[in-house]
């Protein structure tokens, strides 16, 4: 029998970026807010300190900051005709856990979407016509979002100033700015901090891109280029390019995370209460099943509680948000065969790929000097920034030299034709490790329908 608790105004399921940010806004309005975080409480000091945090085996390979598969896993298949099987060890996507969620160990890559992305179906229809869209096939399930870029711009701005994002604007109120991305959606003002220093691989890419007539710009980064105090009065430090960014927490206070940009302003509020190691089992509904009355959760000892609330905010990782909706019997589950249902619909995922460039032995790339969001890129092939009418697909990709690390278990490039192991392999690794650039191209609005709101893995 769940122990009933005193009602509160708001309960958040998860205290990552969304849970902490929403809680701060509502607590400022005077509401009583409870945050339920299934993982442990943790903070930059003492939990994220070096040198212990610079452990590639523990955090990159064994996925130390991720959800423990022993406790909770998901099943996975690529198509409905397969049997979904448990993901026994995380490989491609990596759900985090713990206070701050994934925003603790993210990369800091801080883009805005394009204007067209919010009205994507309308935009494609207007530019390329109905026949073109139909030719993309029935698997393409793109829709207009229902909110426009212009409506969101003030909030993009607020968020970037909360994080202190480092960058160079390419378009301020319609005026193209030199040094920035000329294809970006118009911003109301410049970034809060200047761009990060350009690493060697970024400079080499810039030279090449400019010579070909493209428009290189510095990647916008939430690993800050300089000390910064955000509107909450919280101070961030300058990124040291330590090369242990994605998968790791930042010991320098240089990466925007709930710990650095929100939580100190939230946790000391008398009307906010964090309950860590508390996992929500389900959202409770009234007899009409149209209104939430609160949540049921278990604490670290397995004791079940019922927390009544006027507002239940579902602010976990998107995958887990869908899961709690399904477990609570809220909404209609998405059926990929019929296309009906909204819960779990259009779960979208990013893939990257790209060439590896092997340089001469006298060119020291030093990939270990990097942040998660540095380097130089072009948007000339992104989104709908180029004419697709003869190409038979929609969307595109950024291209850039934005290496994030030289951690050797993960990064030991060898040229094609090198044996997979043995003496030749070893010699190739020794020759090429410090003289290689990997240039990813991220498909965030897919070349195939699979990447954007189409057929995708069933989870």
């Amino acid at each position, binding site marked *: 029998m769940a122990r009933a608790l005193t009602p509160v105004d708001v309960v958040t399921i998860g205290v990552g970026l969304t849970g902490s940010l929403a809680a701060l806004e509502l607590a400022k309005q005077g509401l009583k807010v409870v945050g339920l975080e299934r993982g442990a409480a943790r903070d930059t000091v003492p939990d994220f300190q070096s040198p212990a945090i610079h452990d590639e085996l523990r955090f990159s390979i064994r996925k130390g900051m991720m959800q423990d598969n022993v406790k909770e896993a998901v099943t996975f298949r690529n198509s409905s005709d397969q049997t979904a099987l448990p993901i*026994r060890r995380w490989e491609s996507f990596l759900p985090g856990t713990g206070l701050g969620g994934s925003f603790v160990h993210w990369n800091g890559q801080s883009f805005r979407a394009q204007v067209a992305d919010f009205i994507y179906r309308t935009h494609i229809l207007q530019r390329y016509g109905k026949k073109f869209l139909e030719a993309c096939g029935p698997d393409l399930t793109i829709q207009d979002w229902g909110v426009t870029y212009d409506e969101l711009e003030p909030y993009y701005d607020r968020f970037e100033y909360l994080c202190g994002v480092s960058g160079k604007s390419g378009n301020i109120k319609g005026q193209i700015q030199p040094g920035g991305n000329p294809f970006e959606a118009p911003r109301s003002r410049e970034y809060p901090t200047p761009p990060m220093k350009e690493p060697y691989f970024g400079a080499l890419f810039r030279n090449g891109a400019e010579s070909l007539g493209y428009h290189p710009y510095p990647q916008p980064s939430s690993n800050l280029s300089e000390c910064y105090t955000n509107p909450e009065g919280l101070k961030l430090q300058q990124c040291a390019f*330590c*090369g242990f960014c994605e998968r790791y927490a930042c010991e320098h206070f240089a990466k925007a995370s709930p710990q650095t940009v929100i939580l100190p302003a939230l946790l000391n509020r008398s009307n906010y209460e964090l309950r860590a190691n508390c996992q929500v089992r389900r959202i409770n509904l009234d007899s009409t099943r149209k209104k939430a009355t609160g949540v049921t959760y278990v604490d670290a000892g397995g004791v079940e509680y019922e927390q009544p609330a006027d507002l239940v905010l579902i602010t976990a990782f998107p995958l887990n948000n869908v899961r709690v909706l399904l477990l609570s019997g809220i909404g209609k589950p998405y059926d990929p065969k019929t296309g009906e249902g909204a819960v779990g619909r259009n779960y979208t995922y990013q893939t990257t790929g790209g060439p590896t460039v092997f340089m001469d032995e006298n060119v020291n790339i030093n990939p270990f000097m990097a942040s998660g969001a540095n380097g130089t890129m072009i948007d000339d092939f992104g989104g709908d920034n180029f004419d697709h009418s003869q190409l038979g697909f929609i969307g595109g990709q950024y291209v850039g030299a934005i290496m994030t690390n030289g951690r*050797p278990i993960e990064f030991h490039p060898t040229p094609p034709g090198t044996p997979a192991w043995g003496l030749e392999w070893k010699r190739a690794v020794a020759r090429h490790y410090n003289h290689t650039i990997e240039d990813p191209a991220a498909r965030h609005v897919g070349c195939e329908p699979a990447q954007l709101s189409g057929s995708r893995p069933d989870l």
Partner: protein
Amino acid sequence: MADISRRTMVKARGVIGTSMLPAGLALDDASAREHQKHKATPTKPPSAPAPVTETPAPSLRTYRLTTAYLFFNDDEAAFIESAVARLIPKDDRWAGALEAGVPNFIDKQLAGAWGAGERLYRNGPWQPGTPSQGYQLPLTPAELFRTALGAINKELSKTPFVQMSPEQQDGYLKSLEAGGKDLAGVPSDVLFAHLWQSTLEGFFSDPVYGGNHDMVAWQMIGFPGAYASYYDLIDQHGIKIDRRPMSLAEDVHGHVHIDPGIPARSP
């Protein structure tokens, strides 16, 4: 009784060639008896130790390690040592996986939490799955290695791996890698993938875990290790970094403290 300064595998080393350097053990009698307990098959009681017969090639720096195996029995350790020596061999410039202590790394991983199934989902359903569905065996890493190595050593009982020439050893490893061989329930390509991945990890991980001895792998590639601050260097494009690599477990005297038992969980 004189100290045992080599394990019995030394006797086989002569046929492997001078490229093999020992991951030698310096054992006293008590340790030797203790070590006997880890053998899978009954053995003779400890006898008078073999005298030291091998000297390292004088032009090379040798990496003489003291390895107390906690997981591998003698036969398993012999295979692992010989196998990793082929996967990442020593050459005239740089140490290989054996000298770097990769067998020790793998041993400690398998003896510890990761080997026992840390972070591995081990409930059903059990099906082979598609390649993109990843690992689907019910075995922990420790169980996988024990099962597969037992099958390998049984198959090779007439010509043990340690007695093969390097070319023969490479050929055998390639046959494992290609798959199609069932190692008492473990597909050979799955065993090979685990062995290769563990070798990479043992070679390139922080030496706190018992591999990458003296940070030789990091020296080879020029990776500074756990060192964390490059703000003043990152815009000196192409600068050559010559600093000695740094371990996360290094004290002020540069001594690396080994602790293979760090759990793989969030701080």
